């Protein structure tokens, strides 16, 4: 009968029994269960677990809990209190709930009715309508353009043009007209109207097909940018004090440099030649003999091996081709390898003049009519000679044919920013556009590899030039002075390894920059005999490119002059600056975006330059003063990198610039609020410029975070049909998705229904030309239809065939340029902005050890404070 007393269970401990006299045992049990549940499942402290459910009881005074759908209630609670996380309950949640409750009670929500949302919506709709208008406008222009400008070449004009007098007269007229456009001073409204007209013509032109539209855009851009420079020189150089005059003249200098490079760049790329390969004679007896040089110094045999094997397989009459390894390292293993595969092996006693000296030495021992040169990591496609040699036979004056350098591994920019094959890399502008443009003016440069040279022309100039550290460009220059022609074929016929770290990359660029500056001093292309003015202009631009260090640094710091020192470095009215600068910049961007389109996306050039600016500053300056200083440094390739790390050394200049700019930006904000109102406009424009610099520098910083590189050999993405032969004799069709000289990844066309055991050996059948060869492999990994294979030891002949079937396939590198879309500036800017944000995060993530706890604590504190702020219920945000 005792158990019935007040319904108190007998097995309860006595404190509970006592309590049960005052509170109904049903509620006590509920409390107990709740507390246990909270304690065990949510890992709340014991006190909190006891106190939390107690809150329920006062609530029951107002609400009838039985009639409420509990799961619904729970869900609603978390939507209205998004800062309370069911997985992480804490005592502070009470404060958070209170704040949020007050916020919810006071603030009125309607869907999408917050100010920000309205603003965003409005901006979005404006943007969309602008885009639509832009599209229809472009469409109309395009249609009309095709209708109106169907230009048929007229022979009478052509004949007239051939007269020298007519030609010079028209040149003169053009220059006079240009001079007039550039120099006439305009009032501000007149300038506004002028730029509006120019933009109005240039803007719709950007989507019109054809070279004529490009030329018109370039002309307009030349006019407006020249006009800008003229204006800067004639009207804006009345500086107030000595500081402003120093800073102002520096900026003016940088701008003049940029203008010169722009004009030369336009000239260079106004009409790329896009040369096609020439057919060879039917009879192979008429084909000339070729020596293939593979110079090497300290690279491992594993790098040189594929190149040599591929070179031995070049399709050319066997009695007319000889392959030589030029080993400046004099290594015994190389000698053995060369003998085993049937390649020549040439070494020398005195290792003077680096690569050029090495090749000059080899020329003493070989006797072919032509010399093909491959850097030891550039694996040639077997069609290389057949595609290039035709040029020599067609025109006897051709002394060099260059093909692009293509890299199958990611360069440091691509690797560290993780945009390999998404954004054209740094090289693409040069090999995709500039060399083709140079070719138009017979000014193709020799790039040291993937090229064929004529022996007699080389002998004519006394062998490869060795006075500078860029022997290649200098050799081509010397040959051109003798009246030889150079050619460029924009079909990738060899592929190699890119530099694998930012520091190596910078080192390579330093060498190029130094070499170019040396040529500028020793054998200035502007002076001397044998070149025409077009070639001089192309060479000048190549040299100028490497002098970009100082101007870039000036552009990255110029807006700070006003922010920190309040010095007006451009002496002009605010409105005039706006009217001259913004439309001109806009037009330059549009024009460059059209010309460089597939080869360089907008804004990336600034990022590349910013990384290098500081580093090429010193070598170029030194080389300009004393050209004989500095030695040849070999670019390291094929390196490993076991973990992610941040290269603080290499990014130091960018970091300093970044922090100066960031500080400037904050200082400008303070001045904006507390300073005198007359500076607001100029401050705002300086801040915009600083902000842009911050974005560019952020991206430059992001590159220094070295991503890890664990694979010894780089995998090349591919799409080659193949067959996998299992040990059981079954043959499965597949596609090789990636390969290297060590292994490959394949995708079976159908899910394997036959048992495939890992670690089993198998054979992969690959075709090269019309032949099929089997290569022994071991199956390592499987994921769905994808298998990872490891190549097993092969005979030399098999290795050769493997290279033929993979790296040196004719079509191996053909699609490298086609994968890229035409540039879209807004998209490209977004990419730079993203990279920049990653860069900022990287600094925090890779902060030096002593600073790391501080960064960590600050992040934690920020997150903690943020968690108290009231916010919109989550469901509203989603809708």
């Amino acid at each position, binding site marked *: 009968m005792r158990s019935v007393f007040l319904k108190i269970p007998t097995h309860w401990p006595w404190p509970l029994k006592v309590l049960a006299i005052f509170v109904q045992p049903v509620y006590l049990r509920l409390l107990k269960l709740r507390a246990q549940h909270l304690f065990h499942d949510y890992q709340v402290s014991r006190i909190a677990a006891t106190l939390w459910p107690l809150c329920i009881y006062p609530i029951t005074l107002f609400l009838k809990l039985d009639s409420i759908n509990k799961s619904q209630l729970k869900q609603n609670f978390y939507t209205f209190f998004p800062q309370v996380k069911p997985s992480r309950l804490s005592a502070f949640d009470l404060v958070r709930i209170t704040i949020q409750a007050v916020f919810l009670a006071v603030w009125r929500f309607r869907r999408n009715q917050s100010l920000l949302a309205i603003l965003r919506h409005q901006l979005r709709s404006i943007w969309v309508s602008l885009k639509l208008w832009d599209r229809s406008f472009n469409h109309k222009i395009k249609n009309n353009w095709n209708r109106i400008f169907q230009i048929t070449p007229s022979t009478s004009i052509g004949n007239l043009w051939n007269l020298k007098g007519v030609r010079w007269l028209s040149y003169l007229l053009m220059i006079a007209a240009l001079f007039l456009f550039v120099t006439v001073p305009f009032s501000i409204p007149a300038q506004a109207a002028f730029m509006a007209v120019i933009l109005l013509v240039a803007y719709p032109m950007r989507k019109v097909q054809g070279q004529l539209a490009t030329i018109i855009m370039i002309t307009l851009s030349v006019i407006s940018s020249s006009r800008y420079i003229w204006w800067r020189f004639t009207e804006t150089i009345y500086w107030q004090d000595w500081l402003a005059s120093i800073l102002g003249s520096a900026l003016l200098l940088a701008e003049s440099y940029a203008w010169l490079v722009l004009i030369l760049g336009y000239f260079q790329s106004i009409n790329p030649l896009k040369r096609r390969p020439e057919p060879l004679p039917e009879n192979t007896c008429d084909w000339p003999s070729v020596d293939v040089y593979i110079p090497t110094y300290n690279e491992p045999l594993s790098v040189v091996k594929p190149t040599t094997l591929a070179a031995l397989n070049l399709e050319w009459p066997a009695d007319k081709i000889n392959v030589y390894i030029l080993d400046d390292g004099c290594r015994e293993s190389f000698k053995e390898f060369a003998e085993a595969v049937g390649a020549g092996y040439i070494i020398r006693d005195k290792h003077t003049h680096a690569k050029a000296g090495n090749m000059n030495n080899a020329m003493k021992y070989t006797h072919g009519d032509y010399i093909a040169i491959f850097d030891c990591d550039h694996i040639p496609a077997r069609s290389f000679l057949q595609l290039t040699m035709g040029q020599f036979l067609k025109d006897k004056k051709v002394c060099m044919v260059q093909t692009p350098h293509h890299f199958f591994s990611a360069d440091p920019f691509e690797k560290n920013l993780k945009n390999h094959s998404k954004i054209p890399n740094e090289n693409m502008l040069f090999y995709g556009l500039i060399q083709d443009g140079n070719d138009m003016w017979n000014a193709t440069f020799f790039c040291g590899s993937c090229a064929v040279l004529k022996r007699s022309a080389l002998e004519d100039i006394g062998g490869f030039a060795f006075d500078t550290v860029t022997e290649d460009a200098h050799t081509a220059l010397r040959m051109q002075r003798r009246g030889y022609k150079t050619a460029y074929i924009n079909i990738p016929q060899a592929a190699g390894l890119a530099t694998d770290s930012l520091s190596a990359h910078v080192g390579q660029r330093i060498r190029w920059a130094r070499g170019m500056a040396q040529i500028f001093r020793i054998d200035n292309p502007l002076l001397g005999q044998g070149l025409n003015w077009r070639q001089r202009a192309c060479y000048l631009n190549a040299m100028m490119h490497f002098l970009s260090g100082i101007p870039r640094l000036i552009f990255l710091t110029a807006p700070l002059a006003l922010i920190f020192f309040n010095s007006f470095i451009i002496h002009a009215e605010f409105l005039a600056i706006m009217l001259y600068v913004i439309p001109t910049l806009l037009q330059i961007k549009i024009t460059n975006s059209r010309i460089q389109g597939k080869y360089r996306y907008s804004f990336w050039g600034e990022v590349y330059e910013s990384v290098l600016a500081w580093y090429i500053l010193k070598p170029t300056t030194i080389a300009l003063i004393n050209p004989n200083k500095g030695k040849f440094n070999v670019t390291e390739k094929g390196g490993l990198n076991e973990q992610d790390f941040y290269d603080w050394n290499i990014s130091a200049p960018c970091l300093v610039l970044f922090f100066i700019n960031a500080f400037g930006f904050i200082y400008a904000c303070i001045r904006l609020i507390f300073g005198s109102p007359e500076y607001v406009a100029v401050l705002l424009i300086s801040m915009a410029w600083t902000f842009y610099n911050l974005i560019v520098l952020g991206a430059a910083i992001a590159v220094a975070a070295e991503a890890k590189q664990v694979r010894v050999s780089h995998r090349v993405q591919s799409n080659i049909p193949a*067959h996998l*032969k299992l040990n*059981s*004799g*079954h*043959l*499965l*069709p597949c596609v090789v998705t990636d390969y290297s000289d060590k292994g490959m990844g394949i995708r*079976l*066309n*159908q*899910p*394997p*229904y*036959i048992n495939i055991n890992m670690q089993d050996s198998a*054979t992969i*059948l690959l075709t090269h030309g*019309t*032949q*099929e*060869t*089997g290569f022994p492999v071991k199956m390592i990994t499987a994921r769905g239809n994808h298998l990872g294979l490891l190549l097993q030891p092969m005979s030399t002949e098999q290795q050769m065939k493997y290279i033929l079937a993979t790296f040196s396939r004719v079509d191996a590198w053909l699609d490298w340029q086609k994968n890229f879309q035409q540039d879209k500036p807004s998209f490209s800017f977004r990419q730079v902005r993203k990279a920049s944000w990653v860069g900022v995060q990287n600094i925090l993530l890779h902060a030096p050890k002593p600073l790391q706890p501080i960064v960590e604590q600050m992040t934690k504190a920020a997150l903690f404070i943020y968690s108290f702020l009231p916010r919109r219920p989550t469901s509203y945000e989603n809708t």
Partner: protein
Amino acid sequence: MPHVFVIGSKGGTGTSSVAANLARSIRLNGETSVLIELCPQNQLGVHFALPWPNVQGWAQCESFVDLAKQFYRTDSDILLLPYGQMANGITPDTLFTHLKQIELPENAWFIFDCPKTFPVFEFASRKDFIIEVSTCDPICHSILYQKYAYKNYKPIQGHYILVNKYNAQSQIEAEIFCVWQNELNQLCPLFIHFDEAIKEAPGYQNQAVQTHPGNTCRADFAKLSSWLASKVSQQ
């Protein structure tokens, strides 16, 4: 539609397998195929799960009315005419005249599995195909060279040499194949890989293209049938 005669350069080159798989491959493309065995060994039925021992066949029937009853329709909807037991039946000559008389599906591919001694050039018209199945071995090389490699040899239209059971790992096969590619004008531009599946399939009384759809043999025969179809459309 044209007739396709499949004949071996020598015995054991896999003629029946090629005929059976080709017929099935054509069927898989959605076209009809009629497969006729001219080989007295009478084993083509094994590929199509015919009753064993097989008592039907054209060689034992006497009139074309009788002949129409000798066809099997397989599950895959291929019409199959086996050789049957040789009794006192009709000769191949009469068979071809009878075939024209009886009602067979229109636009069907006729595939003949011929013994190596069958005088195929007498029966083939200008529009027909003769697929001579060879393997890359020295015997076949010798046979083919004695037959076709003379300078004054005139290739016959529609006659092609198909390399079967090609094994790229074998050095002799790779070398012979390379020579053929350069010197034999009648060589098919495609070849059939050696595949265990082709060996296994008759064990299931089926064709390899059906039993092993993930194998290379299916792709190879698909290529062969579409190549034939393209040749027909060129005519």
